[in-house]
């Protein structure tokens, strides 16, 4: 998106993306103009300079630290129940900013497109990015497009980087879990991972599991309003809830004790996991965060979370203890205990 198109509003003749759309010539300008500029529709993108220019005073008005993050999105299939790669690419990066306490403001959008992608698919993805960005209150202000030979990428890969501002007085860090703190989650575990597993169609199951993909920045700001001193906050994406809890335990040199009976997991997700021999605690989420908060603030934060649409099923799932340090212990409903470790690699379905 580095040159203004000479005929704004012009229609693209082709109905699939070809290498010409990434070659820097007229076809690319048309693509940028008719799909991206029209789709993302904002006055910071439309000048199409080589860089977006952001007002510093405006940012300084919101806080004293700039937060920056980047993430790549390669999900297959591109569209799945509850979301698509575009929604994911915006919500994921917004959430990475939000869980640092930042107010997300601007995103970039880099796309790597495999030649042959239907143009209509790209338009749908862009429309989804725009509506998700609007819902999260962020603008997509700069971008880049590459088209690669068939087989060099799988349909569409998206990178988004994001900038946000952290208000003064917020010090969320994974090292800050202290004995006595409460551990909260904003709803059901494993929906995204289960929805993707199901959407791939390998199991021919007919479930109505929806991905939980959504921006969480409004929820986080609600939580911070209830308790500015939230100790740890992280979204439980790849590696799932178990991985984030382990990251907190190791960074804080503390023991996180989780009550198995309090973990919120939908029956459909449990059923899918039972069939495949998977553990929902390691399934990816795209709209779930884990918070470690001082015990005396737990009720207020939970009440605030439950009042937000992204947190109506919020619960306290455990607490922080002293020892054994660096570990997560799951208390089973039977009164037994087990260590909940990180996975070595991907979860693989069991034979029998």
């Amino acid at each position, binding site marked *: 998106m580095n040159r203004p198109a000479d005929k704004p509003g012009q229609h693209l003749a082709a109905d699939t993306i070809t290498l010409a759309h990434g070659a820097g010539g007229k076809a690319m300008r048309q693509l940028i103009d008719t799909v991206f500029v029209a789709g993302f529709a904002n006055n910071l993108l439309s000048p199409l300079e080589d860089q977006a220019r952001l007002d510093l005073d405006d940012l300084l008005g919101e806080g004293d630290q700039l937060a920056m993050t980047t993430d790549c999105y390669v999900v297959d299939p591109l569209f799945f129940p509850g979301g698509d790669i575009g929604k994911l690419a915006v919500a994921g990066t917004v959430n990475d900013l939000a869980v640092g306490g930042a107010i997300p403001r601007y995103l970039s959008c880099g796309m790597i497109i495999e030649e042959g992608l239907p143009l209509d698919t790209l338009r749908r993805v862009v429309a989804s990015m725009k509506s998700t960005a609007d819902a999260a209150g962020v603008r997509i202000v700069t971008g880049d497009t590459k088209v690669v030979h068939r087989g060099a990428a799988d349909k569409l890969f998206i990178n988004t980087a994001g900038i946000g501002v952290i208000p003064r007085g917020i010090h969320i860090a994974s090292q800050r879990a202290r004995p006595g703190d409460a551990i909260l989650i904003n709803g059901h575990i494993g929906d995204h991972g289960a929805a993707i597993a199901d959407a791939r169609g*390998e*199991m021919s199951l007919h479930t109505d599991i929806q991905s939980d993909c959504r921006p969480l920045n409004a929820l986080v700001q609600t939580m911070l309003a209830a308790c500015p001193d939230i100790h740890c906050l992280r979204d439980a994406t790849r590696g799932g809830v178990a991985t984030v809890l382990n990251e907190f335990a190791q960074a804080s040199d503390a023991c996180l004790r989780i009550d198995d*009976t*309090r*973990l*919120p*997991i*939908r*029956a459909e997700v*449990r*059923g899918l996991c*039972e069939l*495949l*021999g998977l553990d929902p605690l390691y399934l990816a989420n795209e709209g779930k965060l884990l918070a470690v908060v001082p015990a005396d603030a737990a009720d207020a934060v939970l009440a605030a979370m439950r009042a937000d649409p992204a947190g109506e099923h919020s*619960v306290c799932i455990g607490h922080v203890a002293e020892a*054994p340090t660096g570990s997560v212990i799951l208390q*089973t*409903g*039977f*009164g*037994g*205990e*087990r*260590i909940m*470790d990180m996975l*070595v*690699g991907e979860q*693989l*379905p*069991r*034979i*029998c």
Partner: protein
Amino acid sequence: MNQPLHLIDEFRDPAKAGALIDDIRRLLPRIERARQSPLQLMEFCGGHTHTIFRYGLEQLLPEGIELVHGPGCPVCVLPRGRVDACVALAERPEVILATFGDAMRVPGSHKSLLQAKAEGADVRMVYSPLDALALARKHPERQVVFFALGFETTMPSTALTVLAAAHEQIENFSLFCNHITTAPTIQAVLDTPGMVLDGFLAPGHVGMVIGTGPFRSIAERYRKPMVITGFEPLDILQSLWMLIKQIAAGRAEVENQYQRVVRRDGNAPGLTAMATVFEPHSTCQLRGLGSIGESGVRIRDSYARFDAERRFKVPDLTIADPAACQCGEVIKGAIRPWQCQAFGNSCTPQAPLGALMVSSEGACAAYYNYGNLPELLARQRQAQQGAAAS
């Protein structure tokens, strides 16, 4: 908070678990008066091991009971030479190798299927052998090889797939057959010198296929009580209670706890399909247990065209386990995972030396992932120092 799951949660009821543990506690003194050492009860099946660790059942049991984790994980007992042969098959350019997920990480002597895939081999994860047959239909120009493994639990579905391939005359489909049978494997464990096992939890899903008969003959021959057991925590606790009741009464019978699934005569159509496609193999190598008579199966001559080993001339490799690896001793229940010097040191889930560390159902992986690792390693060091001092 978990939303209820009908026909699952009934078998995970903590109150009922507590009652069963109380019952076990009440039975135990009757046995303990007559013996010096704890009861050694083996769960044969990796699925049982998984449940025991996942629910922390071992710590709930009274001290007089020790659970010994047996060889019933088909991924764990697969010899390295067979993994190498499978990798060699997968690396043939014309081959699509279809496999169950957890077989992908098992290390051969050079690499696993996962590594072969990363290097360009066409390895596909499937949930059923019928998925492999579908791949063969979809890619008539390629050779689809299904990595068939497992005890009798998975054998009927493999056999039915071969019958379907024969019926449809799908000629680009074959099996790399690594199926093994349960009864000879249990006997190999019982024949191990110095083996002191007091009873068995027998594998429920194998029982679903083969029925209760094959277990009965072992129980009678070796005078060991057996309970055919389901896979939920209450199944395991109830079966332990049934086993201990038998021991207390001096009985050595086969009882069926998993009555909601296992019938006396097993699954007739499944058994027929198995007998049509497979025949017993003279001997079979099992990792850790060595060569076991009649434990393997091979594809009958009438279905030889679906045998990948005859189609591709797969090398017959025998590769010894790494010297430091004591998987064999662990599989037989002779030592606990942490008593192996490699456990947690040169053998971890990140870099597994032995197969028991690879599969999520392997005893070593279960101890490593779910156990208290620092404590286990401290015990290992103490034992080592003790051995050095003596």
